[in-house]
């Protein structure tokens, strides 16, 4: 089977600034691929290149079986893109925005109207359909944006930071919609700054740093690289603290703050084990916090340094 996206040795500079330094990506059909990285890592540049918005300086690029340079329109017929910034016509209503996409996809009058109605329903925009998009909330705009991307039934969808700036509820709505799409056989490449998002959604994750892929694998493989998962136990009395150190020999003690860091993956099962051991020894714990690995931990694990958002690599 041909992969949906194949990119080999992709390089791109803006002036003196090297943004992509030989990136290789392969995305199989019907899977979700997440590009994980901090701001300025080059995520958006990859998306812009793969969606024909930007020419690469070097590299082999095939999307939906079409060579990106030789047949950009072939690629455009197969893809849908939801960028980081809303790509709506603010002066048109939600319904008119979708109709515009139906017309540009040459769906025809009846099929277009049907598709528009279906998407308004599916994205919970029926009540807002007749209002200008400029009056929509952030979450509604994102939903309309995604709905517009789907009008032409693309086989491959690019989502650039689909949940950045959304409240938790809207974020979960978007995740739900993304899962439905893949269940329908669509291929998705998304970018994100959040390990949790990549973990929740992706079949494969690639970590991008300063224009290079520094790690790639399934969420499980990637999280195994991260030693950051632990439970933090705070004590009030030095005696209890010392006792706990004996009961939990794997823990890393901090004697000044009376805090123990116990390695733990944060699953219900291992938390129950830990709590059982605390109970068995009748330890008085004043505070317990679960620390799950985040992007900073992954970064630390694969690059040996924390994320540095302001730094720019130059040739």
């Amino acid at each position, binding site marked *: 089977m041909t992969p949906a996206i194949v990119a080999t040795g992709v390089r791109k500079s803006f002036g003196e600034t090297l943004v992509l330094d030989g990136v290789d990506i392969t995305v199989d059909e019907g899977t979700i691929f997440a590009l994980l990285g901090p701001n300025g890592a080059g995520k958006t540049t990859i998306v812009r290149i793969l969606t*024909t918005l930007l*020419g690469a300086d070097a590299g082999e690029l095939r999307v*939906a079986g079409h060579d990106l340079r030789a047949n*950009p329109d072939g690629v455009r*017929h197969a893809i849908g893109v939801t960028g980081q910034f809303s*790509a709506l*016509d603010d002066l048109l209503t939600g319904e008119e925005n979708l109709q*515009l996409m139906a017309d*540009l996809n*040459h769906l025809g009058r009846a099929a277009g109207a049907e598709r528009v109605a279906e998407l308004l329903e599916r994205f919970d925009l029926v009540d807002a359909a007749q209002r200008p998009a400029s009056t929509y909330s952030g979450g509604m705009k994102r939903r309309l944006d995604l709905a517009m991307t789907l009008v032409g039934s693309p086989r491959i969808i690019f989502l650039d930071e689909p949940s950045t700036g959304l409240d938790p509820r809207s974020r979960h709505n978007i995740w739900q919609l993304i899962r439905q799409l893949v269940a329908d056989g669509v291929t998705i490449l998304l970018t994100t700054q959040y390990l949790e998002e990549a973990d929740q959604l992706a079949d494969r994750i690639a970590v991008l740093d300063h224009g290079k892929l520094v790690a790639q694998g399934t969420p499980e493989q990637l999280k195994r690289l991260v030693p950051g998962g632990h439970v933090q136990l705070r004590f009030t009395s030095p005696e209890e603290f010392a006792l706990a150190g004996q009961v939990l020999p794997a823990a890393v003690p901090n004697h000044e703050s009376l805090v123990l860091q116990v390695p733990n993956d944060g699953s219900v099962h291992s938390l129950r084990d830990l709590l059982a051991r605390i109970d068995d020894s009748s330890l008085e714990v004043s505070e317990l916090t679960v620390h799950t690995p985040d992007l900073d931990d992954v970064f630390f694990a694969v690059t040996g340094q924390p994320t540095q958002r302001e730094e720019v690599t130059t040739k």
Partner: protein
Amino acid sequence: MSTMTHTSPAPRPVADIGTMLRRNLRHAQRYPGLSLGALGMPVIMILLFGLVFGDTFAAGLGGADTSFDYIDFLTPGILLMSIASGTMSPAVAVCTDMTEGIVARFKTMAVFRPAFLTGHVLGNVILTIVSLVLVIGFAVLIGFRPNASLGDWLLAAGLLIAVTVALTWFAIALGLTSKTPEGASNIVLPISLLLPFLSNTFIPLESMPSGIRWFAEYQPFTPIIDTLRHLLLGTPMDSGDGWLAIAWCAAIAVVGYFWSQKNYNKGTVA
């Protein structure tokens, strides 16, 4: 998988241009401020110069010649001025669109590439035709008396539309060089305001100071206005002015078209 191998559908230029045009007309209809301004301005010009300044200008220019009718002299120039001032709104609209994400979306779709800008040009041509009809109507009300035949009217209409198409493409190319809509409105000022004033719109060339007169004589508006006056009023014109007018329109349109496409596609895979 079948969707991966089948050949892409053929482009649909006419359908895509129609879609983009409908989008622009809907904007104009829903947010009429900009369009009403573009329509109202030339009407104000014809009334102001025709009624308020008209007698003074006529006395100054016609001298003892009582047959000199300033409204007749003025109207063809104001028609051209309407076209010129009308180019500002598409230049600003295109620039505004470029700052929004919607244009990036269009570029990732298999849309006929020139459709977006062509839709803006056609939208402005329609708006300008309405504006020209209004100006002619008000001009007739205050004494404009053309003696053109139907054929002359058709030729004049054709010339006016050709000028509109040419200047709109050029203004859009200029607007695309600006990063902000405010900048776009400034950068088109030379063609929307300066060229009409520095031509024989308001006064004949003979009455201008020599430096400005030299410029006015060789800039595109002057032969176009002369040709219009000839078609509508039967005034004499230099032989070749008609062809010169057409050549200017063609040249401006071609430069404007290719320059604006180049600016629109800058940095992207066309």
